C-alpha cells in the first residue's frame, strides 16, 4: 500500500536545489510533495513525484545521488485537528516516526501527509482502524 519517495543528496551550495527541480521540470515530471532536511553540511531533498521511475532515471543521469524509500501516505480531511489525530495514533501505539511532512492535493477538501516509519504495514493498519485513509502509489499520480 505504501507510496514511493525519492530522496536526493543536496550539497549546501547555491544552485544545487534549482538544478534538481529544473531537471524534473524539463522532463515534465510533477512534484506532488517536497520537503528538505537540512544539516550544516548537506541536505536531503525528499520528493513524491508523478512518475517515480522516470524521475530516478533522469536524476541518476544527471549524476545525482538518489535513493528510494517506501513511505506511508495518508489522506486527511483539510480541517483542524486532522493531523493531530495521526500523531496521536502513532504515539499511543509506540510508533517511532523518523520524519513526516504534509502537502495539499488539487482539491481543497483534502490534505496529505507522508510518514516515514519502520513498519509501513502496521502503521497503515493502525491509521485505517482510526478511520484515516491511506493512499497507494497509483493514487499519487491522480492527486
Amino acid at each position, binding site marked *: 500500500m505504501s507510496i514511493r*519517495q525519492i*530522496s536526493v*543528496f*543536496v*550539497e549546501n*551550495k547555491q544552485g*544545487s536545489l534549482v538544478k534538481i527541480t529544473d531537471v524534473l521540470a524539463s522532463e515534465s515530471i510533477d512534484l506532488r510533495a517536497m520537503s528538505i*532536511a537540512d*544539516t550544516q*553540511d*548537506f541536505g*536531503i531533498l*525528499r520528493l513524491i513525484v508523478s512518475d517515480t521511475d522516470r524521475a530516478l532515471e533522469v536524476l541518476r543521469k544527471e*549524476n*545525482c*545521488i*538518489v*535513493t528510494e*524509500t517506501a513511505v506511508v501516505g495518508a489522506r486527511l480531511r483539510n480541517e483542524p485537528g486532522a493531523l493531530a489525530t495521526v500523531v496521536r495514533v502513532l504515539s499511543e501505539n509506540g510508533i517511532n516516526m*523518523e*520524519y513526516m511532512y504534509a502537502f495539499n492535493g488539487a482539491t481543497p477538501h483534502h490534505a496529505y501527509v507522508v510518514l*516515514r516509519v519502520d513498519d509501513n504495514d502496521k502503521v497503515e493498519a493502525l491509521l485505517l482502524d482510526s478511520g484515516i485513509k491511506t493512499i497507494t502509489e497509483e493514487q499519487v499520480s491522480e492527486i
Partner: protein
Amino acid sequence: MAERYWQKEIETASREEIKAIQDERLVKTVKHVYDNVEMYRKRMDEAGVKPEDIKSIDDLHKLPFTTKQDLRDNYPYGLFAVPTKDVVRLHASSGTTGKQIVVGYTKHDLDVWDEIAARQLYAVGADENDFIHVSYGYGLFTGGFGLHGGAGKIGATAIPVSSGNTDRQITILQDFGSTVLCCTPSYAMYIAEQVKAKGIDPKTLPLRAGIFGAEPWTEEMRHQIEEMLDIKAYDVYGLTEIMGPCVSYECSEQTGMHVNEDHFIVETIDPDTGEVLPYGTPGELVFTCITKECCPFIRYRTRDIGVLTIDKCSCGRTFVKMTKPKGRTDDMLIIRGVNVFPSQIETVLLRMGYSPNYKIFVDRVNNTDTLLVQVEMTEEMFSDTVTKIKEHEKALEGELRSLLGIGADVQLVAPGSIERSMGKAKRVEDKRKLIGG
C-alpha cells in the same frame, strides 16, 4: 600461463650474478662521474674518497648523496656527464615547488629505458600482439615516452593517446581495441567512472591490464580499478631524475615492484640520519644509476618512503622488490605533530566503501591544525534520513582517527564535485603554507 620474461637471463639471475654485475658497473660509473662532473669530483674530494676506493657495492655507502636541490643548483646541464652533442633527448620535471629540473639521455640511455619498459610490459603478459594505450602525458614529463618506447621494443602496437579528452580515450579503448592501459591511477579511476557513466560493460572492452604509476596509490584503489574496468592493475615506479617510469616494475604476483638492479642500485636510508637500513625496514628510497651515460646520479635521494624485500617471488624474478611507496616525504603532512600520508586517508575511504575522489584540507585555526577530508557521497552511503548519513560520517571519522591517530572532520560532497585529474591528482590543500606556517 607460463611466466614470460623479456630478458630471462638477467631477470632471473642469481643474487651473486646480480652483485657481480653491480660491482663492475658501479666502479665504472663512479670513475665516469668523477672524471666528467665537477660536482661529484668536488664532493668526493671533500669526503676524501677516490674512485679507486670504490671496489664493489659494499663501498657504496662511502659516496655522498645527490639531492633534488643539487639538480636545481646545477640547472640546466651542470650534472651532465657527457657533452651535449651526445645528448639525444631532454626531459624535465617541474615539481610543485621550486625551479624545474632537467635530465638528458644519450642514445644508449634511451635504449636502456626502452629495455626496462619492455620488461614491464612482458611482466604484465603483453607481447607483440598487444595494443598499448598510453594515456600518460607526452612531453617533457617522462610518463608517455617511457611506456611508448617499451611498446616499440617488444613490437606491440603503441597508441600514443596522451592524457586528457576522456571521451576520446574511451572511444579509442572501444574502437582501437587497446589491451593495456598506461596512465596515473587517478586517471584510470576517472576513465573507469566515465566508462560506467556511459553504460559500457567493461567486459565488452578488450582491455585486460593496466600499468599505473607516477603517484602514490593504495591497494584498495587497485582493487576498485580492477573491478570497475575488469582488468589486472599493475604498479610501476620511476622518476625523471633516475630515468622515468619502469625503474621498478610489478609482476604477476602483484606484491611489489622488482627494481631493475642491473641498471640501478637501490638502498633504503633513514631520512634523518642518512644511515643505510636493512631490507624490510621502511625508509627513504635511494637509487644509484650504474649504466647511464648522461645523468648517472649517485645515491639519489627520492624522498619516497618504501620497503625493500628480497623474498623469493612466485614470478621467478630475482631482483629486489620494493613496496608501493607510501608517499613522498614531501607529501607527508605533519598535523598536530603527527605524520599523515594522504595514502593512509585513501586506504580508509576505500575500505569503508567511499569513492577514491577526495580532497584533504589542512588549516590552522586558533593555533591548532585542522584536518578536513572531503569525499564524494555514493549511492550506497546515502539514505533518506539524516541519522543514517551521520552514522556513516561518524564511522568514517572513527576509522580515520584510529588509523591516523588524530581526529579528522569529514564532509560529504556531491558526486563529480571534486576536481578530476588527467595526470597526477592534487589531493591536498595545505592552507597553513599560505600564511607562512
